């Protein structure tokens, strides 16, 4: 390997940006531009099959990693994670009530919502910021995205079952909490009747006195 080729190699390696053969020649002092061009071609050939290529782009030369290795250098490690319970709740509230501010989500959930939860939903691509509500403090409001509909197999938000339908499928039956199961015990006596029914039932019970 001749000295000029070594110098070209080092100069291009250390350069902040691609260089033309002329710029290289003048950078390397008294080198003839023709020799530099020859050197560049030899180097390009040497690197042709290596992990790094010497390439010419619009008369300017630079080193770059071999295109077929690009996947190695900018790899994405995907890991699948199940959405947390809290995040799922927040997502559901946004879907049912959108557009909705964080404070509104919290008041519906009855629990404080960490900012991280919304971040996760936005990272997942299911929730986006939909502007600000024109009230004092101008809170950010959130809405679901087309990706959300896609992922959950919905053609529109109107496909989301209503409260009555949720109740009919038993999805409003709280099961976790002992207290709640007591309440639901009373409710299920209503046997799938409407929203109004429950108080009626209660007064029926009254007649037993």
């Amino acid at each position, binding site marked *: 390997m001749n000295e000029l080729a070594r110098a070209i190699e080092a100069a291009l390696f250390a350069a902040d*940006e691609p260089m033309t053969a002329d710029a290289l020649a003048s950078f390397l002092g008294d080198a003839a531009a023709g020799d530099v061009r020859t050197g560049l071609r030899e180097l390009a050939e040497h690197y042709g099959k290596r992990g790094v290529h010497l390439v010419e782009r619009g008369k300017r030369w630079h080193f770059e990693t071999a295109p077929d290795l690009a996947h190695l250098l900018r790899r994405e*490690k995907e890991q699948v994670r199940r959405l947390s319970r809290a995040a799922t709740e927040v997502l559901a509230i946004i879907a049912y009530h959108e557009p909705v501010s964080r404070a509104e989500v919290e008041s519906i959930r009855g629990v404080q919502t960490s900012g991280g939860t919304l971040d996760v939903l936005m990272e997942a691509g299911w929730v986006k910021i939909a502007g600000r509500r024109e009230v004092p403090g101008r809170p950010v409001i959130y809405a679901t995205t087309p990706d959300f509909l896609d992922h959950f197999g919905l053609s529109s938000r109107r496909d989301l079952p209503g409260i009555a339908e949720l109740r009919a499928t038993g999805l409003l039956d709280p099961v976790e909490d002992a207290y709640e199961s007591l309440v639901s015990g009373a409710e299920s006596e209503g046997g799938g009747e409407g929203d109004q029914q429950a108080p009626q039932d209660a007064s029926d019970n009254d007649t037993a006195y």
Partner: protein
Amino acid sequence: MTADGLLFADQTAAGAAAEADDWDGIAADDTRDNEALYLELDGWEGPLDLLLDLARRQKVDLRQISILALVDQYLDYIDQAGALRLELAADYLVMAAWLAYLKSTMLLPRDEQEDPSAEELALKLQLRLQRLGAMREAAGRLMGGDRIGRDVFLRGNPEGLEIARKTLWRCDQFALLEAYGRVKARTAPAVHMVRERPVMTLDSALERVSHMLGVTLDWMELRDFLPPHAEPRLRRSALASSFVAALELARMGRAEIAQEDVFGPMRLRRIAQK
């Protein structure tokens, strides 16, 4: 270390003496006048630094320097600076005093010396100078190495390696709906609504009871005053207001009340008006 290495070996002393003379001339050789000589004090970081420099001017291996010559040179130096009436940092003067003491004990016959001996002190000073000299030389060699950005250069514009950790979040429709149901059930508003109930007011009960009492003089059970086909809730209300109406009529002397047993049926009869 051999005896050669010790401070005051013969040839060392001779050599050092010569060097010491040499040094006297160095200031001139280096074309420094007294003032320039002094001004260099700022360049020395403390007395040890100055001592090391003086020792190096003896142009011998640091192991062979003459401490005695070194002391003289240092004291001369401080004298000169003093003559220029320039202020000297305290630590230079402390070192000067210590060196003057060291020199005096070195000149004393051995058996009059105290502990630690002058030789010990001198040897330790020499060892310190050697160590500082070695480090200074090492620093020079270190700085002279192939340093990045001066002698060798890294890739000018590395693309950088990137591992984009992407999380694919997973959730399904059922989980979504279940979550909403959970929220709704958990936060179903615990509102206590008072429904409108059919009631019989006291006024209407009073009117109704006194009207019905006017029809007959016989005892009637309170229950008979209630509207016969009313829904249960209205009956309960009517029962309560009719009872209060009965009490009111009795108070006004328009009716009398009788009850045979505790919790037995209550009966009511009109008192004939005189």
